[in-house]
Protein backbone atom coordinates (compact mmCIF):
# COMPACT_ATOMS: atom_id res chain seq x y z
CA UNK A 1 0.00 0.00 0.00
CA UNK A 2 1.25 3.44 -0.87
CA UNK A 3 2.62 5.33 2.18
CA UNK A 4 0.46 8.32 2.97
CA UNK A 5 3.23 10.90 2.55
CA UNK A 6 4.24 9.81 -0.96
CA UNK A 7 2.24 11.70 -3.58
CA UNK A 8 2.48 11.65 -7.33
CA UNK A 9 3.72 15.12 -8.40
CA UNK A 10 1.04 17.22 -10.04
CA UNK A 11 1.45 18.68 -13.53
CA UNK A 12 4.61 16.69 -14.24
CA UNK A 13 5.35 14.04 -16.80
CA UNK A 14 6.53 10.98 -14.86
CA UNK A 15 9.52 9.20 -16.44
CA UNK A 16 10.32 6.57 -13.84
CA UNK A 17 7.91 5.14 -11.35
CA UNK A 18 8.29 2.53 -8.60
CA UNK A 19 5.20 0.83 -7.21
CA UNK A 20 5.33 -1.47 -4.21
CA UNK A 21 8.92 -2.42 -4.96
CA UNK A 22 10.66 -4.94 -2.73
CA UNK A 23 14.19 -6.35 -3.08
CA UNK A 24 15.96 -9.30 -1.47
CA UNK A 25 19.65 -10.23 -1.59
CA UNK A 26 19.25 -13.96 -1.05
CA UNK A 27 17.49 -14.24 2.32
CA UNK A 28 18.25 -10.63 3.26
CA UNK A 29 15.53 -8.08 2.66
CA UNK A 30 16.88 -4.70 1.48
CA UNK A 31 13.85 -2.79 0.18
CA UNK A 32 10.19 -3.06 1.11
CA UNK A 33 7.09 -1.46 -0.36
CA UNK A 34 8.90 1.40 -2.10
CA UNK A 35 6.90 3.98 -4.06
CA UNK A 36 8.65 6.71 -6.01
CA UNK A 37 8.01 9.09 -8.92
CA UNK A 38 10.76 10.67 -11.03
CA UNK A 39 9.46 13.64 -13.04
CA UNK A 40 10.84 14.59 -16.44
CA UNK A 41 13.60 17.24 -16.70
CA UNK A 42 13.74 17.62 -12.95
CA UNK A 43 16.35 16.63 -10.36
CA UNK A 44 15.05 14.16 -7.83
CA UNK A 45 17.16 13.51 -4.73
CA UNK A 46 17.17 10.34 -2.62
CA UNK A 47 18.23 11.15 0.94
CA UNK A 48 18.37 9.14 4.14
CA UNK A 49 20.74 7.53 6.63
CA UNK A 50 23.44 5.07 5.56
CA UNK A 51 22.30 1.55 4.84
CA UNK A 52 18.68 2.41 4.14
CA UNK A 53 18.87 1.22 0.53
CA UNK A 54 19.29 4.45 -1.46
CA UNK A 55 21.92 3.06 -3.83
CA UNK A 56 20.10 -0.26 -4.05
CA UNK A 57 16.94 1.53 -5.14
CA UNK A 58 18.88 3.67 -7.62
CA UNK A 59 20.38 0.57 -9.22
CA UNK A 60 16.92 -0.94 -9.71
CA UNK A 61 16.19 1.74 -12.28
CA UNK A 62 18.93 0.68 -14.74
CA UNK A 63 18.84 -2.99 -13.79
CA UNK A 64 22.36 -2.86 -12.35
CA UNK A 65 21.18 -5.18 -9.56
CA UNK A 66 20.75 -7.90 -12.19
CA UNK A 67 24.53 -8.37 -12.01
CA UNK A 68 24.39 -9.55 -8.41
CA UNK A 69 23.51 -13.23 -8.03
CA UNK A 70 20.45 -14.11 -5.92
CA UNK A 71 18.71 -10.75 -6.22
CA UNK A 72 14.91 -10.89 -6.31
CA UNK A 73 12.83 -7.85 -7.12
CA UNK A 74 9.08 -7.65 -6.62
CA UNK A 75 6.58 -4.95 -7.44
CA UNK A 76 6.60 -2.82 -10.57
CA UNK A 77 9.17 -0.38 -11.93
CA UNK A 78 8.11 1.48 -15.06
CA UNK A 79 9.77 3.77 -17.57
CA UNK A 80 7.16 5.89 -19.37
CA UNK A 81 4.62 3.34 -18.20
CA UNK A 82 6.55 0.35 -19.61
CA UNK A 83 7.64 -2.35 -17.18
CA UNK A 84 11.47 -2.26 -16.96
CA UNK A 85 11.51 -5.87 -15.77
CA UNK A 86 9.19 -7.35 -18.40
CA UNK A 87 10.51 -10.58 -19.96
CA UNK A 88 11.02 -8.99 -23.37
CA UNK A 89 13.07 -6.05 -22.05
CA UNK A 90 16.83 -6.34 -22.56
CA UNK A 91 18.78 -4.77 -19.67
CA UNK A 92 21.41 -3.55 -22.15
CA UNK A 93 18.77 -1.39 -23.81
CA UNK A 94 17.57 -0.14 -20.43
CA UNK A 95 21.10 1.06 -19.57
CA UNK A 96 21.43 2.79 -22.89
CA UNK A 97 18.33 4.92 -22.06
CA UNK A 98 19.07 5.28 -18.37
CA UNK A 99 22.73 6.16 -17.84
CA UNK A 100 24.66 6.05 -14.59
CA UNK A 101 27.40 8.02 -12.83
CA UNK A 102 29.09 6.23 -9.95
CA UNK A 103 30.23 7.32 -6.52
CA UNK A 104 33.94 7.06 -7.23
CA UNK A 105 35.04 8.47 -10.59
CA UNK A 106 35.78 5.41 -12.75
CA UNK A 107 37.16 6.51 -16.12
CA UNK A 108 38.52 3.76 -18.37
CA UNK A 109 42.33 3.51 -18.39
CA UNK A 110 42.33 4.98 -21.89
CA UNK A 111 42.55 8.44 -23.44
CA UNK A 112 40.02 11.17 -22.66
CA UNK A 113 38.76 10.95 -26.24
CA UNK A 114 38.42 7.17 -26.11
CA UNK A 115 36.53 7.31 -22.80
CA UNK A 116 33.74 9.21 -24.53
CA UNK A 117 33.90 7.60 -27.96
CA UNK A 118 33.73 4.02 -26.66
CA UNK A 119 30.19 4.08 -25.29
CA UNK A 120 28.90 5.84 -28.39
CA UNK A 121 30.67 3.39 -30.68
CA UNK A 122 29.40 0.21 -29.01
CA UNK A 123 25.90 1.66 -29.15
CA UNK A 124 26.23 2.01 -32.90
CA UNK A 125 26.86 5.77 -33.21
CA UNK A 126 27.60 6.51 -36.86
CA UNK A 127 27.98 10.32 -36.88
CA UNK A 128 31.08 12.46 -36.57
CA UNK A 129 32.94 11.20 -33.50
CA UNK A 130 35.09 14.33 -33.04
CA UNK A 131 31.96 16.46 -32.90
CA UNK A 132 30.27 14.13 -30.41
CA UNK A 133 33.33 14.15 -28.14
CA UNK A 134 33.51 17.95 -28.21
CA UNK A 135 29.77 18.38 -27.66
CA UNK A 136 29.74 15.95 -24.73
CA UNK A 137 32.78 17.55 -23.10
CA UNK A 138 31.25 21.02 -23.54
CA UNK A 139 27.99 19.88 -21.98
CA UNK A 140 29.95 18.45 -19.06
CA UNK A 141 31.82 21.77 -18.69
CA UNK A 142 35.15 20.04 -19.22
CA UNK A 143 36.05 21.01 -22.80
CA UNK A 144 38.17 24.08 -22.03
CA UNK A 145 40.24 22.17 -19.50
CA UNK A 146 41.06 19.17 -21.70
CA UNK A 147 40.76 20.29 -25.33
CA UNK A 148 44.55 20.34 -25.77
CA UNK A 149 45.11 16.86 -24.40
CA UNK A 150 42.23 14.77 -25.67
CA UNK A 151 44.55 11.89 -26.47
CA UNK A 152 46.35 11.72 -23.15
CA UNK A 153 45.24 9.38 -20.38
CA UNK A 154 42.05 10.09 -18.48
CA UNK A 155 43.76 8.83 -15.33
CA UNK A 156 45.96 11.95 -15.29
CA UNK A 157 42.91 14.18 -14.63
CA UNK A 158 41.99 15.36 -11.13
CA UNK A 159 39.15 13.60 -9.29
CA UNK A 160 36.65 16.34 -10.13
CA UNK A 161 37.67 16.35 -13.78
CA UNK A 162 37.42 12.55 -13.89
CA UNK A 163 33.89 12.71 -12.52
CA UNK A 164 32.87 15.30 -15.13
CA UNK A 165 34.47 13.05 -17.76
CA UNK A 166 32.29 10.20 -16.51
CA UNK A 167 29.27 12.49 -16.86
CA UNK A 168 30.39 13.47 -20.39
CA UNK A 169 30.78 9.78 -21.24
CA UNK A 170 27.23 9.13 -20.04
CA UNK A 171 25.82 12.09 -21.99
CA UNK A 172 27.54 10.87 -25.15
CA UNK A 173 25.22 7.87 -25.43
CA UNK A 174 22.28 10.31 -25.23
CA UNK A 175 20.27 8.70 -22.46
CA UNK A 176 17.02 10.23 -21.24
CA UNK A 177 17.71 9.69 -17.56
CA UNK A 178 20.99 10.01 -15.63
CA UNK A 179 21.27 8.15 -12.32
CA UNK A 180 23.92 9.59 -10.00
CA UNK A 181 25.14 7.64 -6.98
CA UNK A 182 26.65 10.23 -4.62
CA UNK A 183 28.61 11.71 -7.54
CA UNK A 184 30.38 14.34 -5.42
CA UNK A 185 31.11 12.41 -2.23
CA UNK A 186 34.73 11.74 -3.23
CA UNK A 187 35.35 15.36 -4.32
CA UNK A 188 36.43 18.57 -2.61
CA UNK A 189 33.95 21.45 -2.15
CA UNK A 190 35.01 23.33 -5.31
CA UNK A 191 34.75 20.27 -7.52
CA UNK A 192 31.43 19.47 -5.84
CA UNK A 193 30.11 22.92 -6.70
CA UNK A 194 31.10 22.43 -10.32
CA UNK A 195 29.19 19.14 -10.46
CA UNK A 196 26.15 20.80 -8.89
CA UNK A 197 26.23 23.68 -11.39
CA UNK A 198 26.57 21.13 -14.15
CA UNK A 199 23.47 19.27 -12.92
CA UNK A 200 21.44 22.48 -13.19
CA UNK A 201 22.56 22.80 -16.81
CA UNK A 202 21.86 19.16 -17.56
CA UNK A 203 18.32 19.07 -16.23
CA UNK A 204 17.15 21.12 -19.20
CA UNK A 205 17.76 18.07 -21.39
CA UNK A 206 17.91 15.16 -18.97
CA UNK A 207 15.99 13.72 -16.07
CA UNK A 208 18.27 13.24 -13.07
CA UNK A 209 17.89 10.96 -10.06
CA UNK A 210 20.63 11.49 -7.49
CA UNK A 211 21.55 9.70 -4.26
CA UNK A 212 23.19 11.99 -1.75
CA UNK A 213 24.28 11.87 1.86
CA UNK A 214 24.57 15.59 1.94
CA UNK A 215 21.28 17.25 2.85
CA UNK A 216 22.47 20.74 1.94
CA UNK A 217 23.26 19.37 -1.48
CA UNK A 218 19.80 17.86 -1.82
CA UNK A 219 18.25 21.16 -0.73
CA UNK A 220 20.46 23.16 -3.13
CA UNK A 221 20.15 21.15 -6.31
CA UNK A 222 16.98 19.09 -6.33
CA UNK A 223 13.40 19.85 -7.30
CA UNK A 224 11.93 16.79 -5.65
CA UNK A 225 13.17 14.84 -2.67
CA UNK A 226 12.47 11.33 -1.46
CA UNK A 227 13.24 10.57 2.16
CA UNK A 228 14.29 6.97 2.77
CA UNK A 229 14.50 5.19 6.08
CA UNK A 230 14.55 1.68 7.50
CA UNK A 231 11.15 0.20 8.20
CA UNK A 232 9.94 0.05 11.79
CA UNK A 233 11.37 -3.44 12.26
CA UNK A 234 14.70 -2.02 10.92
CA UNK A 235 15.07 -4.76 8.33
CA UNK A 236 14.44 -3.06 5.00
CA UNK A 237 14.56 0.42 3.55
CA UNK A 238 11.59 2.29 2.17
CA UNK A 239 10.58 5.76 1.01
CA UNK A 240 8.70 7.39 3.89
CA UNK A 241 8.05 10.75 2.30
CA UNK A 242 8.26 12.18 -1.20
CA UNK A 243 7.40 15.62 -2.49
CA UNK A 244 8.75 18.94 -3.75
CA UNK A 245 12.15 19.62 -2.13
CA UNK A 246 11.01 22.92 -0.73
CA UNK A 247 8.12 21.24 1.02
CA UNK A 248 10.23 18.38 2.40
CA UNK A 249 12.73 20.78 3.91
CA UNK A 250 10.31 23.39 5.25
CA UNK A 251 7.06 21.53 6.00
CA UNK A 252 7.84 17.84 6.37
CA UNK A 253 4.76 15.78 7.06
CA UNK A 254 6.44 12.78 8.61
CA UNK A 255 7.95 13.24 12.06
CA UNK A 256 10.96 11.06 11.11
CA UNK A 257 11.73 13.28 8.11
CA UNK A 258 11.66 16.33 10.32
CA UNK A 259 13.94 14.67 12.90
CA UNK A 260 16.40 13.67 10.17
CA UNK A 261 16.66 16.99 8.37
CA UNK A 262 16.93 18.95 11.60
CA UNK A 263 19.69 16.60 12.76
CA UNK A 264 17.77 15.06 15.62
CA UNK A 265 17.80 11.59 14.10
CA UNK A 266 19.50 8.58 15.75
Amino acid at each position, binding site marked *: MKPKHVDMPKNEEIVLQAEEVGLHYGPKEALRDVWLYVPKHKITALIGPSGCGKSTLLRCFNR*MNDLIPDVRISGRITYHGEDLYADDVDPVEVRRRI*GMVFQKP*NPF*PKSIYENIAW*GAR*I*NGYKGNMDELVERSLRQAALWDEVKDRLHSS*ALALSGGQQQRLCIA*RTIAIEPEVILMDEPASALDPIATLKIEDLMQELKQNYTILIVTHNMQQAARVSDYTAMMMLSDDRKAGTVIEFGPTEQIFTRPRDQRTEDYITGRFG
Partner: protein
Amino acid sequence: MTTLHDTVFEAQLARRRLKGRLFELVALIAITIALTSLALLFLDVLYDGLGRLNWQFLTSYPSRRASRAGFLPAIVGSIYMVGLMVLFAFPVGVGAAIYLEEYAPKNWLTDLIQINIANLAGVPSIIYGLLGLEFFARVLGAWTGGRSLLTGALTMALLVMPIVIISAREAIRAVPNSIRLAAIGLGATRWQVVRDHVLPYAMPGILTGTILAVSRAIGETAPLITIGALTYVAFLPDGLRSQFTVMPIQIFNWISRPQSAFHENAAAGIIVLLAILLSMNALAVFLRYRFEQRLKG
Protein backbone atom coordinates in the same frame (compact mmCIF):
# COMPACT_ATOMS: atom_id res chain seq x y z
CA MET B 1 69.17 5.09 36.74
CA THR B 2 67.75 7.74 34.44
CA THR B 3 64.67 7.43 32.25
CA LEU B 4 66.64 6.76 29.08
CA HIS B 5 69.17 4.37 30.67
CA ASP B 6 67.20 1.50 32.16
CA THR B 7 69.87 -1.21 32.55
CA VAL B 8 67.43 -4.12 32.63
CA PHE B 9 65.70 -2.92 29.46
CA GLU B 10 68.99 -2.26 27.72
CA ALA B 11 70.29 -5.77 28.41
CA GLN B 12 67.07 -7.18 27.00
CA LEU B 13 67.27 -4.87 23.97
CA ALA B 14 70.81 -6.08 23.23
CA ARG B 15 69.54 -9.67 23.19
CA ARG B 16 66.70 -8.70 20.83
CA ARG B 17 69.16 -6.99 18.49
CA LEU B 18 71.45 -10.05 18.54
CA LYS B 19 68.57 -12.33 17.50
CA GLY B 20 67.78 -9.97 14.65
CA ARG B 21 71.39 -10.04 13.45
CA LEU B 22 71.52 -13.84 13.62
CA PHE B 23 68.42 -14.17 11.50
CA GLU B 24 69.81 -11.74 8.97
CA LEU B 25 72.97 -13.86 8.77
CA VAL B 26 71.00 -17.09 8.23
CA ALA B 27 69.03 -15.44 5.41
CA LEU B 28 72.26 -14.19 3.85
CA ILE B 29 73.79 -17.67 3.94
CA ALA B 30 70.65 -19.10 2.31
CA ILE B 31 70.78 -16.75 -0.64
CA THR B 32 74.54 -17.21 -0.99
CA ILE B 33 74.15 -21.00 -1.23
CA ALA B 34 71.36 -20.65 -3.80
CA LEU B 35 73.16 -18.14 -5.99
CA THR B 36 76.62 -19.70 -5.78
CA SER B 37 75.44 -23.15 -6.76
CA LEU B 38 73.57 -21.65 -9.73
CA ALA B 39 76.58 -19.58 -10.74
CA LEU B 40 78.89 -22.60 -10.42
CA LEU B 41 76.63 -24.73 -12.58
CA PHE B 42 76.43 -21.99 -15.17
CA LEU B 43 80.21 -21.40 -15.17
CA ASP B 44 80.85 -25.14 -15.46
CA VAL B 45 78.56 -25.35 -18.50
CA LEU B 46 80.17 -22.27 -20.05
CA TYR B 47 83.66 -23.73 -19.47
CA ASP B 48 82.74 -27.04 -21.08
CA GLY B 49 80.59 -25.73 -23.90
CA LEU B 50 81.82 -22.32 -25.06
CA GLY B 51 84.68 -23.80 -27.04
CA ARG B 52 82.29 -26.02 -28.97
CA LEU B 53 79.76 -23.27 -29.68
CA ASN B 54 80.17 -22.05 -33.26
CA TRP B 55 78.23 -21.57 -36.47
CA GLN B 56 78.84 -25.15 -37.58
CA PHE B 57 77.29 -26.43 -34.32
CA LEU B 58 74.18 -24.30 -34.79
CA THR B 59 73.63 -25.24 -38.44
CA SER B 60 74.51 -28.95 -38.59
CA TYR B 61 72.57 -32.14 -38.18
CA PRO B 62 73.52 -34.81 -35.63
CA SER B 63 76.42 -37.05 -36.56
CA ARG B 64 78.24 -40.13 -35.30
CA ARG B 65 81.33 -37.96 -35.01
CA ALA B 66 81.05 -35.42 -32.18
CA SER B 67 83.02 -32.74 -34.00
CA ARG B 68 80.63 -32.79 -36.96
CA ALA B 69 77.43 -33.09 -34.95
CA GLY B 70 75.09 -30.11 -34.72
CA PHE B 71 72.05 -28.83 -32.91
CA LEU B 72 69.92 -27.53 -35.79
CA PRO B 73 67.02 -30.06 -35.81
CA ALA B 74 66.66 -29.73 -32.05
CA ILE B 75 66.57 -25.93 -32.15
CA VAL B 76 64.05 -25.86 -34.99
CA GLY B 77 62.01 -28.68 -33.42
CA SER B 78 61.82 -26.88 -30.08
CA ILE B 79 60.77 -23.60 -31.66
CA TYR B 80 58.12 -25.27 -33.86
CA MET B 81 56.78 -27.30 -30.97
CA VAL B 82 56.59 -24.39 -28.54
CA GLY B 83 55.06 -22.13 -31.18
CA LEU B 84 52.37 -24.67 -32.02
CA MET B 85 51.77 -25.31 -28.33
CA VAL B 86 51.14 -21.61 -27.69
CA LEU B 87 48.73 -21.59 -30.63
CA PHE B 88 46.68 -24.31 -28.89
CA ALA B 89 47.16 -23.46 -25.22
CA PHE B 90 46.76 -19.66 -25.34
CA PRO B 91 43.27 -19.35 -26.86
CA VAL B 92 41.86 -22.36 -25.01
CA GLY B 93 43.47 -21.41 -21.68
CA VAL B 94 42.52 -17.73 -21.85
CA GLY B 95 39.04 -18.66 -23.07
CA ALA B 96 38.57 -21.00 -20.12
CA ALA B 97 39.78 -18.31 -17.73
CA ILE B 98 37.38 -15.73 -19.22
CA TYR B 99 34.50 -18.16 -18.93
CA LEU B 100 35.29 -19.05 -15.32
CA GLU B 101 35.79 -15.43 -14.24
CA GLU B 102 33.29 -13.49 -16.31
CA TYR B 103 30.46 -15.83 -17.20
CA ALA B 104 30.28 -18.89 -14.95
CA PRO B 105 28.00 -18.73 -11.91
CA LYS B 106 29.82 -19.05 -8.61
CA ASN B 107 28.74 -22.42 -7.21
CA TRP B 108 30.15 -25.73 -5.99
CA LEU B 109 30.76 -26.94 -9.54
CA THR B 110 32.96 -23.98 -10.50
CA ASP B 111 34.73 -24.28 -7.13
CA LEU B 112 35.42 -27.94 -7.88
CA ILE B 113 36.73 -27.05 -11.35
CA GLN B 114 38.98 -24.41 -9.85
CA ILE B 115 40.50 -26.81 -7.32
CA ASN B 116 41.06 -29.41 -10.01
CA ILE B 117 42.78 -27.00 -12.36
CA ALA B 118 45.20 -26.19 -9.55
CA ASN B 119 45.70 -29.94 -9.01
CA LEU B 120 46.36 -30.51 -12.71
CA ALA B 121 49.21 -28.00 -12.54
CA GLY B 122 50.91 -30.35 -10.07
CA VAL B 123 50.51 -33.60 -12.02
CA PRO B 124 53.93 -35.07 -13.00
CA SER B 125 54.67 -34.35 -16.64
CA ILE B 126 55.26 -38.03 -17.48
CA ILE B 127 51.55 -38.65 -16.88
CA TYR B 128 50.78 -36.12 -19.60
CA GLY B 129 53.27 -37.99 -21.79
CA LEU B 130 51.35 -41.24 -21.30
CA LEU B 131 48.06 -39.48 -22.04
CA GLY B 132 49.55 -37.94 -25.19
CA LEU B 133 50.94 -41.27 -26.33
CA GLU B 134 47.65 -43.07 -25.91
CA PHE B 135 45.24 -40.38 -27.06
CA PHE B 136 47.04 -38.17 -29.58
CA ALA B 137 49.59 -40.64 -30.99
CA ARG B 138 47.45 -43.81 -31.01
CA VAL B 139 43.71 -43.02 -30.88
CA LEU B 140 44.01 -39.92 -33.07
CA GLY B 141 47.05 -41.25 -34.91
CA ALA B 142 45.32 -41.08 -38.28
CA TRP B 143 45.12 -37.30 -38.00
CA THR B 144 48.18 -36.45 -35.92
CA GLY B 145 50.53 -38.77 -37.77
CA GLY B 146 51.49 -40.70 -34.64
CA ARG B 147 54.69 -39.63 -32.92
CA SER B 148 54.66 -36.27 -34.63
CA LEU B 149 55.30 -32.61 -34.01
CA LEU B 150 51.53 -32.14 -33.73
CA THR B 151 51.22 -34.85 -31.06
CA GLY B 152 54.09 -33.29 -29.12
CA ALA B 153 52.59 -29.80 -29.29
CA LEU B 154 49.12 -31.00 -28.26
CA THR B 155 50.55 -32.96 -25.32
CA MET B 156 52.59 -29.98 -24.18
CA ALA B 157 49.56 -27.73 -24.61
CA LEU B 158 47.65 -29.93 -22.14
CA LEU B 159 50.63 -29.85 -19.80
CA VAL B 160 50.87 -26.06 -19.64
CA MET B 161 47.13 -25.34 -19.88
CA PRO B 162 46.63 -25.17 -16.08
CA ILE B 163 49.45 -22.62 -15.80
CA VAL B 164 47.88 -20.48 -18.53
CA ILE B 165 44.39 -20.75 -17.02
CA ILE B 166 45.49 -19.98 -13.46
CA SER B 167 47.60 -16.97 -14.40
CA ALA B 168 44.95 -15.62 -16.77
CA ARG B 169 42.32 -15.96 -14.04
CA GLU B 170 44.52 -14.09 -11.58
CA ALA B 171 45.05 -11.33 -14.14
CA ILE B 172 41.34 -11.09 -14.97
CA ARG B 173 40.42 -11.05 -11.30
CA ALA B 174 42.77 -8.11 -10.76
CA VAL B 175 40.76 -5.93 -13.17
CA PRO B 176 38.92 -3.38 -10.99
CA ASN B 177 35.20 -4.07 -10.91
CA SER B 178 34.48 -0.35 -11.26
CA ILE B 179 35.67 -0.60 -14.87
CA ARG B 180 33.23 -3.42 -15.62
CA LEU B 181 30.38 -1.51 -13.98
CA ALA B 182 31.24 1.67 -15.89
CA ALA B 183 31.12 -0.22 -19.18
CA ILE B 184 27.93 -2.11 -18.34
CA GLY B 185 26.36 1.17 -17.22
CA LEU B 186 27.00 2.56 -20.69
CA GLY B 187 24.95 -0.20 -22.24
CA ALA B 188 27.73 -2.64 -23.10
CA THR B 189 27.16 -6.37 -23.50
CA ARG B 190 29.31 -8.84 -21.55
CA TRP B 191 31.42 -9.52 -24.61
CA GLN B 192 32.04 -5.82 -25.29
CA VAL B 193 33.18 -5.38 -21.70
CA VAL B 194 35.53 -8.36 -21.93
CA ARG B 195 36.92 -7.47 -25.35
CA ASP B 196 37.53 -3.75 -24.82
CA HIS B 197 38.28 -3.47 -21.11
CA VAL B 198 38.91 -6.71 -19.24
CA LEU B 199 41.27 -8.33 -21.77
CA PRO B 200 43.43 -5.24 -22.48
CA TYR B 201 43.72 -4.59 -18.75
CA ALA B 202 44.59 -8.21 -17.95
CA MET B 203 46.90 -8.74 -20.94
CA PRO B 204 50.23 -8.04 -19.17
CA GLY B 205 49.39 -10.65 -16.54
CA ILE B 206 48.13 -13.14 -19.11
CA LEU B 207 51.32 -12.74 -21.16
CA THR B 208 53.49 -13.29 -18.10
CA GLY B 209 51.67 -16.53 -17.39
CA THR B 210 52.01 -17.65 -20.99
CA ILE B 211 55.75 -17.00 -20.99
CA LEU B 212 56.08 -18.99 -17.78
CA ALA B 213 54.28 -21.80 -19.57
CA VAL B 214 56.61 -21.54 -22.57
CA SER B 215 59.67 -21.57 -20.32
CA ARG B 216 58.38 -24.69 -18.64
CA ALA B 217 57.62 -26.40 -21.95
CA ILE B 218 60.92 -25.62 -23.63
CA GLY B 219 62.81 -27.48 -20.90
CA GLU B 220 60.42 -30.45 -20.64
CA THR B 221 61.81 -33.79 -21.71
CA ALA B 222 59.89 -36.62 -20.11
CA PRO B 223 56.51 -36.33 -21.87
CA LEU B 224 58.19 -35.97 -25.27
CA ILE B 225 60.32 -39.03 -24.74
CA THR B 226 57.16 -40.87 -23.71
CA ILE B 227 55.29 -39.96 -26.86
CA GLY B 228 58.38 -40.98 -28.81
CA ALA B 229 60.14 -37.88 -30.06
CA LEU B 230 63.31 -39.13 -31.72
CA THR B 231 66.79 -38.76 -30.37
CA TYR B 232 68.59 -38.86 -33.69
CA VAL B 233 66.99 -36.63 -36.30
CA ALA B 234 68.86 -35.78 -39.45
CA PHE B 235 66.16 -33.62 -41.01
CA LEU B 236 64.02 -30.59 -40.21
CA PRO B 237 60.30 -31.04 -39.53
CA ASP B 238 58.50 -30.40 -42.84
CA GLY B 239 54.96 -30.40 -41.54
CA LEU B 240 52.68 -30.91 -38.56
CA ARG B 241 52.82 -34.66 -38.95
CA SER B 242 56.58 -34.83 -39.27
CA GLN B 243 58.76 -36.54 -36.69
CA PHE B 244 60.92 -34.26 -34.60
CA THR B 245 63.28 -33.80 -31.69
CA VAL B 246 63.76 -31.00 -29.20
CA MET B 247 66.75 -29.44 -27.46
CA PRO B 248 66.55 -31.21 -24.05
CA ILE B 249 66.22 -34.61 -25.73
CA GLN B 250 69.27 -33.98 -27.92
CA ILE B 251 71.23 -32.79 -24.88
CA PHE B 252 70.18 -35.86 -22.91
CA ASN B 253 71.23 -38.07 -25.80
CA TRP B 254 74.68 -36.51 -26.02
CA ILE B 255 75.27 -36.70 -22.28
CA SER B 256 74.51 -40.41 -22.22
CA ARG B 257 77.27 -41.11 -24.79
CA PRO B 258 80.59 -42.36 -23.32
CA GLN B 259 82.86 -40.07 -25.42
CA SER B 260 83.78 -36.79 -23.71
CA ALA B 261 83.55 -34.89 -27.02
CA PHE B 262 79.81 -35.47 -26.96
CA HIS B 263 79.68 -34.08 -23.43
CA GLU B 264 81.09 -30.83 -24.83
CA ASN B 265 78.29 -30.86 -27.39
CA ALA B 266 75.78 -31.26 -24.57
CA ALA B 267 77.27 -28.29 -22.72
CA ALA B 268 77.10 -26.16 -25.86
CA GLY B 269 73.49 -27.29 -26.31
CA ILE B 270 72.65 -26.21 -22.78
CA ILE B 271 74.10 -22.77 -23.51
CA VAL B 272 71.88 -22.45 -26.59
CA LEU B 273 68.83 -23.64 -24.63
CA LEU B 274 69.50 -21.10 -21.88
CA ALA B 275 70.05 -18.30 -24.39
CA ILE B 276 66.74 -19.01 -26.14
CA LEU B 277 64.94 -19.26 -22.79
CA LEU B 278 66.36 -15.96 -21.58
CA SER B 279 65.52 -14.16 -24.82
CA MET B 280 61.95 -15.40 -24.57
CA ASN B 281 61.73 -14.11 -21.02
CA ALA B 282 63.16 -10.79 -22.16
CA LEU B 283 60.54 -10.62 -24.90
CA ALA B 284 57.85 -11.26 -22.30
CA VAL B 285 59.12 -8.48 -20.06
CA PHE B 286 59.19 -6.17 -23.05
CA LEU B 287 55.63 -7.04 -24.17
CA ARG B 288 54.37 -6.66 -20.65
CA TYR B 289 55.99 -3.26 -20.40
CA ARG B 290 54.46 -2.15 -23.71
CA PHE B 291 50.94 -3.20 -22.64
CA GLU B 292 51.33 -1.48 -19.29
CA GLN B 293 52.46 1.74 -21.00
CA ARG B 294 49.43 1.60 -23.26
CA LEU B 295 47.14 1.36 -20.24
CA LYS B 296 48.78 4.38 -18.68
CA GLY B 297 48.11 6.12 -21.98
